[in-house]
């Protein structure tokens, strides 16, 4: 291929193998211009400001990171997702990041009216037009089974190519099909986990190749006691130094790709029962940080 200067030349250089393959995939599979592609590959607006309270500078999510929000029901995981979504889709003039977000909803949990309420409180002048303009940056997909989730993730590649500003992927929640998969998958645990494993692999590949940040929630559905009838028969030891109730039950492939795990819990406070606690844990460096927040009309507010 004759060397062309400038943008195209950078694209086909032998050093950037990933970008070359990526470009080929996009150009054969979907509509996309070279400029759009490079807008994604080059540095975009940094995601460090996505939530300054939650992500201190050294561990803010960078492109390609996968974060897991884990907790029991009513602990604020979905509210935190709305908060992050609102931060991303609001325009820069209102304190947002002007980015596009793709929200994958697996259990019909997504409450559009709640998100609109949060946006209304955060916009300086909330009018229907401005809210719809913000919502134009949000894309919502609903999946009804784990195989449909897997196929949807495969089909997302076309969409990711054509939307360079789409760099946040939210999945609420990954564990929604857990019991259905365990029953439909056959006799051995590994065949039951097969679809989950593939989903984890595809998510990791999408996050890495398309430079996305993935936030996903997993529900805490296993009971604390080791003799619980719901839990799997072979359980891993809960790390005793953490004061969180975490029993991993998703497949190993998923546990390995998670870069940061955030545990949510409700604070049993006699003064205000609305206070929530989150513990942010990095499995690789084994560090933890605690934050507390309340949920008000305008969403999550950190203390």
């Amino acid at each position, binding site marked *: 291929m004759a060397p062309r200067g400038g943008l195209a030349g950078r694209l086909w250089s032998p050093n950037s193998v990933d970008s070359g393959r990526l470009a080929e995939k996009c150009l054969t599979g979907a509509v996309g211009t070279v400029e759009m592609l490079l807008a994604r590959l080059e540095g975009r607006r940094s995601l460090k400001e996505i939530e300054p309270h939650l992500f201190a500078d050294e561990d803010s999510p960078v492109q390609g990171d996968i974060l897991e929000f884990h907790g029991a029901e009513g602990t604020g995981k979905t509210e935190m997702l709305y908060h992050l979504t609102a931060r991303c889709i609001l325009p820069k003039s209102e304190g947002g990041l002007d980015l596009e977000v793709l929200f994958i909803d697996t259990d019909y949990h997504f409450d559009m009216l709640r998100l609109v309420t949060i946006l209304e409180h955060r916009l300086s002048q909330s009018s229907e037009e401005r809210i719809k303009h913000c919502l134009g940056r949000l894309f919502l997909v609903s999946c009804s089974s784990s195989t449909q989730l897997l196929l949807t993730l*495969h089909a997302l590649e076309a969409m990711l190519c054509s939307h360079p500003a789409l760099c946040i992927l939210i999945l609420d929640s990954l564990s929604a099909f857990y019991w259905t998969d365990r029953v439909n998958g056959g006799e051995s645990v590994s065949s039951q986990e097969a679809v989950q494993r593939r989903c984890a692999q595809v998510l990791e590949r999408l996050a890495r190749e398309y430079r996305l940040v993935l936030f996903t929630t997993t529900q805490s559905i296993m009971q604390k006691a080791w003799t619980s009838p719901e839990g799997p028969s072979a359980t891993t030891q809960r790390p005793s130094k953490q004061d969180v109730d975490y029993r991993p039950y998703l497949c190993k492939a998923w546990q390995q790709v998670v870069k940061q795990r955030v545990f949510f819990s409700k604070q049993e406070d006699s003064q205000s029962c609305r206070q929530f606690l989150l513990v942010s844990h990095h499995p690789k460096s084994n560090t933890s940080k605690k934050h507390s927040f309340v949920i008000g009309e305008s969403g999550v507010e950190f203390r």
Partner: protein
Amino acid sequence: MGMLRAGLCPGLTEEMVQLLRSHRIKTVVDLASADLEEVAQKCGLSYKALVALKRVLLAQFAAFPLNGADLYEELKTSTAILSTGIGSLDKLLDAGLYTGEVTEIVGGPGSGKTQVCLCVAAHVAHSLHQNVLYIDSNGGLTASRLLQLLQCRTRDEEEQAGALRRIQVAHAFDIFQMLDRLHDLRGAVAQQVSGSSGTVKVVIVDSVTAVVSPLLGGQQREGLALMMQLARELKTLARDLGIAVMVTNHITRDRDSGRLKPALGRSWSFVPSTRVLLDSIEGAGTAGRSQRMACLTKSPRQPTGLQEVVDIRTWGTSEQGAALQEEQT
């Protein structure tokens, strides 16, 4: 879903299916995750044909992303808030039952869950003129009680009869019957059967514990999977058909802490969007025996911990009942 076969989508011929099967690509998922260049080389099919096939299959089986602004427009017109007919309960629920959501009423025996359901059914059928599907799984529904509630609202027998006609009752004493009833509802709405099923706006399930708790316990996974299937049915029904779903659940004691919690375990606890706990009031004495404390324990839009006192004796009848009393005197 998922086995490749001829005619599944345009362009998929029997010979292609056989060729792919001989290289261990049997389902749609296999094809979507395979490396198409390799497959093209091994099977002797053209790469472009495989790419086109994959695109068609994904378009057919994968979910399609919707834009937030479009979805908001749609929801603005289709979401309705249905008052329950009980003022204090409406305050907790932020004006009433929202369509598209599952609301759970939790309480011990005798706390008034069935009375709430009957009151809501009577109110929606009579004052809001909407159809109600009442799925009864523990025999708590009696038509005479419904009639009593309606008689407190109106003296006109025609109106009472009309309201009773709008309440469809279905009995389901195990989970398969319940899933069948929900399936029937979907079918009836899909065919747009005129008359009763046309505008079902509220589905009441009293109670969901009666059909699910026999399945739980022990090391069986099937029970939990069936429970999650029921949960998914209820939620998709609420979303797709614009229905407000109300379910009742019992309470049990937590093994470790001894506190009361809703039954059916942690997996079910994620299913409803709103949960109201009914409890009797301690030390209320004989006068307060019909009073209950309703506490909001989960809500997507109100702070939890709100409490209101409700009186069973006058449930739903206080406003209308007082008006009729005045008429008589």
